[in-house]
């Protein structure tokens, strides 16, 4: 029976932890892959500071130690009206199965939370199957994650079916079928009232559009990830390996909207984040028209979007449900719950949690360059 110990992650532990993490998740997610630069991006480069990360180690016969478990919190900047918050997203939480009788994991996570009780206003988690465990630590369930997708204005079901066919058969004649179908879908798409402006990552970071976007929009956003240039740069534009298109539109009235779309997979794009200000349903509807058209023109058959059922204002969810459909497997998949815990610091500040404004932005560690962007890699 190996001796166990816990310690804080320190610089230099990345390779060992990344190896163990990938080994742990490989049974469940065979395509799981994460480069060291990506891991370092996640651990060190958040505008809110480096991640808090704790290791569980077992002693080897030769006296050395190996990593057998981990708990992490990735700091994310959020806003709630005029208030700036630091929220911690649980990251790469795991304990190797053979040690679950030898180590009380929940007590370990409880101690981790106690160590950072002054740092985070809220910690949150989004993973299947962990609600019961985390509720014991004071987490409450906000909602469950939902995934929506859009194929085409007409023949939507068929378009989404063609995407699924070609998803696993990326060769002729399926790719030819996909291209032909895309042409049909484009012909039958609703004509948007405007076209979107697309920025490169560098252009977006330097643009006037984003320089003052969040200071103006944050007041109506509720509890929401902060979308200043620094946050969007870290999260999307400077993320190693990311292929993200940045699309914006400004109406004559001064209303503005942006969308960040993962374009790595040619037939199925993912809407990773968006914001429309003011938050009017008619503006969102028109923006989605333009976005769907843009996606088709860029070669995608479908566009997916993840949120929670209450993670958008009700009038926005009405628009999404009208324009998009649930993922076909959603009925049979175990839901990923979205749970959160207000820290002692948050309680001391009198923090009252309204509805969360949720997109893939908040699931910071989820890989976004994979054929199945709807899958989560790694326990969270």
């Amino acid at each position, binding site marked *: *029976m190996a*001796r*166990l110990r*816990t310690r804080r992650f320190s610089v230099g532990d990345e390779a060992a932890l990344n190896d163990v993490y990938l080994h742990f998740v490989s049974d469940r997610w065979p395509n799981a892959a994460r480069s060291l630069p990506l891991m370092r991006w996640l651990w060190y480069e958040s505008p809110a500071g480096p991640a808090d990360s704790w290791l569980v180690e077992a002693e080897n016969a030769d006296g050395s130690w190996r990593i057998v478990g981990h708990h992490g919190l990735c700091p994310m900047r959020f806003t709630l009206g005029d208030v700036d918050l630091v929220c911690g997203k649980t990251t790469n939480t795991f*304990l190797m199965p053979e040690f*679950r*009788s*030898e*180590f*009380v*994991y*929940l*007590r*370990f996570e409880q101690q981790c939370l106690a160590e950072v009780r002054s740092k985070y206003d809220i910690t949150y988690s989004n993973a299947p199957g962990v609600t*019961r*465990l985390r509720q*014991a630590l004071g987490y409450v369930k906000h909602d469950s994650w939902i995934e929506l997708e859009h194929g085409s204005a007409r023949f939507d079901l068929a378009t989404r079916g063609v995407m699924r066919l070609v998803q696993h058969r990326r060769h002729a004649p399926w790719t030819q079928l996909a291209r032909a179908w895309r042409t049909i879908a484009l012909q039958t798409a609703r004509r948007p009232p405007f076209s979107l402006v697309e920025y490169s990552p560098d252009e977006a970071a330097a643009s006037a559009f984003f320089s003052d976007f969040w200071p103006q929009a944050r007041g109506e956003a509720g509890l929401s990830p902060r979308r200043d240039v620094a946050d969007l740069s870290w999260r999307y534009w400077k993320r190693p390996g990311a292929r993200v298109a940045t699309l914006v539109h400004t109406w004559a009235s001064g209303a503005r909207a942006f969308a960040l779309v993962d374009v790595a997979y040619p037939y199925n794009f993912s809407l990773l984040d968006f914001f429309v200000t003011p938050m009017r349903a008619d503006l969102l509807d028109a923006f989605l028209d333009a976005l769907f058209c843009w996606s088709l023109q860029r070669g995608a058959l479908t566009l997916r979007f993840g949120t929670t059922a209450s993670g958008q204002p009700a009038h926005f969810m009405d628009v999404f449900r009208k324009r998009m459909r649930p993922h076909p497997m959603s009925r049979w998949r175990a839901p990923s719950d979205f749970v959160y815990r207000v820290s002692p610091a948050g309680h001391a500040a009198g923090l009252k949690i309204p509805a969360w404004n949720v997109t893939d932005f908040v699931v910071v560690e989820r890989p976004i360059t994979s054929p199945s962007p709807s899958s989560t890699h790694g326990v969270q």
Partner: protein
Amino acid sequence: MTDVRLERPVTCDQLRAFLAGLDTMIDPGKLRDDTRFTDAGADSLDFFNVLTSIHAATGVEIPDQDVPLVNTLAGLAAYLTDRMA
């Protein structure tokens, strides 16, 4: 919470009765003396709840380094018998 009291010497049957009163996924009736709790369906929360409830009922706190000694009924009974007043 359970109403079962644990008294020295603590036996496996006492512990089965104690566990039956807790809200866990463990089926005490199927737990042999030497079966690890996690092999009997306990998850992290169940194990945590067992140790927390034991502490509340007996005053015996089980530190991390002793957890491997108490992950069966027999181990837990012997441990508590040694340490309960």
